[in-house]
């Protein structure tokens, strides 16, 4: 059992969720509530990682992270280090790859809130921020939970993008999914089986906890 790979996977999935949550909330809410000219384009861009083959997405990310590319060179001059074959690199790639999983459920959830609930909150004296915290967030909670669950599970299983951007550096970019592939390549099927079972268990537990959290609320009965 490769505990280091498991720890990299969990760290990557956790951080992806943590960072995508505010971004997904802002983007999902904006796309749900506002009408602007470029909205279909924005929605298409957000959904793009969903339909792109992971290796293709990984390839473009790898190219963008290179020191010749504007993004890669800017990062290099800002931080003094490159992105390819680093944990930060696969984290950024993971953020991009998971954007649709985080944004879309949140957007759908915000779209189901009747606009007059927001207006009723304003007329009751709530500021836009308090309206968000007391009225909107509780109502989009299930959408938020499913965004987190999808992002977490998808990151645990991500293979193509991570391999292209990060390779398989032990303790840095070798996630459990990649470690399983390595074991199979080395004809260590029993090792692969243990790790696969572990990934299955972690995925199942995550989803279980998360759906338990979303729960069926009393007010949803009606």
């Amino acid at each position, binding site marked *: 059992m490769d505990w280091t790979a498991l720890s990299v996977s969990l760290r990557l999935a956790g951080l992806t969720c943590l960072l995508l949550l505010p971004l997904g909330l802002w983007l999902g809410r904006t796309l749900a509530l506002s009408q602007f000219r470029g909205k279909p384009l924005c929605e298409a861009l957000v959904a793009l990682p969903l339909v792109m083959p992971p290796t293709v997405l990984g390839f473009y990310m790898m190219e963008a992270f290179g020191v010749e590319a504007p993004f890669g060179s800017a990062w290099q001059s800002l931080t003094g280090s490159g992105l390819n074959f680093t944990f930060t690199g696969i984290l950024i790639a993971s953020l991009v790859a998971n954007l649709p999983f985080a944004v879309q459920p949140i957007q759908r959830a915000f779209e189901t809130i009747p606009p*007059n609930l927001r*207006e*009723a909150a304003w007329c009751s*004296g709530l*500021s836009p921020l308090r309206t968000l915290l007391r009225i909107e967030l509780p109502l989009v909670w299930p959408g938020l939970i499913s965004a987190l669950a999808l992002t977490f599970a998808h990151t645990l299983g991500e293979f193509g993008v991570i391999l292209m951007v990060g390779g398989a550096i032990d303790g840095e970019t070798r996630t459990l999914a990649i470690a399983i592939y390595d074991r199979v390549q080395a004809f260590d099927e029993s090792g692969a089986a243990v790790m696969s079972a572990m990934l299955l268990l972690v995925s199942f537990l995550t989803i279980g906890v998360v759906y338990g959290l979303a729960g069926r609320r009393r*007010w949803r009965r*009606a």
Partner: protein
Amino acid sequence: MPEPSHVATDGRLAVSLQQAGPIPLDADFHCEAGELLALVGPSGSGKTTLLRAIAGLYRPARGVIRCAGEAWFDAEAGHSLRPQQRRVGLVFQDYALFPHLNARGNVKVALDHLPAAERGRVAEQWLARVRLDGLAGRFPGELSGGQRQRVALARALARSPRVLLLDEPFSAVDQVTRRRLQRELALLREEIRIPIVLVTHDLDEAAALADRLCVLHAGRSLQQAPAEQLFRRPASPEVARLLDRHNVFTGRVVAGEQGRRLQWGPWLLEVAEGLAAVAPGQSVSWYLPPSDVVLHRRGRPSRGERENPVQGRVVEMAVLGGITSVALAFDHCDDTLRFELPTHAARRNGLARGEGVGVSLLAAGIHLMPDAPVTHPESPHR
């Protein structure tokens, strides 16, 4: 419009809004503290838009909204208070209760200005005031339509608003509940001395609840008056039509030996007031409330029959329980004259379709509308 003298003007809501589009508006009205003003008009007449503008949820292109001496909106000065600053209580048509909060929680949302420890108690007090004691723990999904409306009303009032806005508040409940809620609103009015603006398309509801009605059409305010006055003295054929009043006709003012008369077909009608303002020879639209049509009894002439007698032909008789609605046609015009009488009286007089009958048009009821165009949109003249 004469000012009602018995109410204070210091809490008054005054609205004057204009814009060409996208929703055309040209509305002027006011509502005193303690007064209930009904905005009536067909769907799409801009009623809800005006209410939303008062609440600060919609910003028209031009105009002013003032409440209790404070400017809430002044387009020219670029001034517009946010909904949170206006202190309005708004009851939405579908109530817009927060589904994840119980009744107490819904009311508490509007009590943020109180110390946290007091909010629960005050929310319960408001719920008790709208007769929902014991239901504070129920979620909106667990309440009936009428109960939801009361929660919405409690929430709207909890913030001690300076104006209460009601958007078709009785449209989503059954008839029995509606009557009860209307009765409760009438009682509640005695306790809250703020302007109340009620939006409704139900004329009976408006007439029953409101001190004054403001008739709207395509965003324009056409007339403001108490119901009785509106129904007897509509400002124009358009208002009459919007108020579902029939009996709008066109006549000509003539000067005869006994003074001015209203010529309508072959008849010269006496009119109690208004003739002096119209020059002889001029065409004028006029209206007669159905209550001012008196049927001539067959075979038993009575004194009132000498007042503006006219002869018509029954073209429609609809028995609506104890009341029969009768429409008379005349040879000289397309319009029919409608009036109602007790069904037994219709039977006793042998009224039947096709029969000729005589009626008197009471001079006091004839209302001239000289400022309005003379054509009646629903029945163009030959």
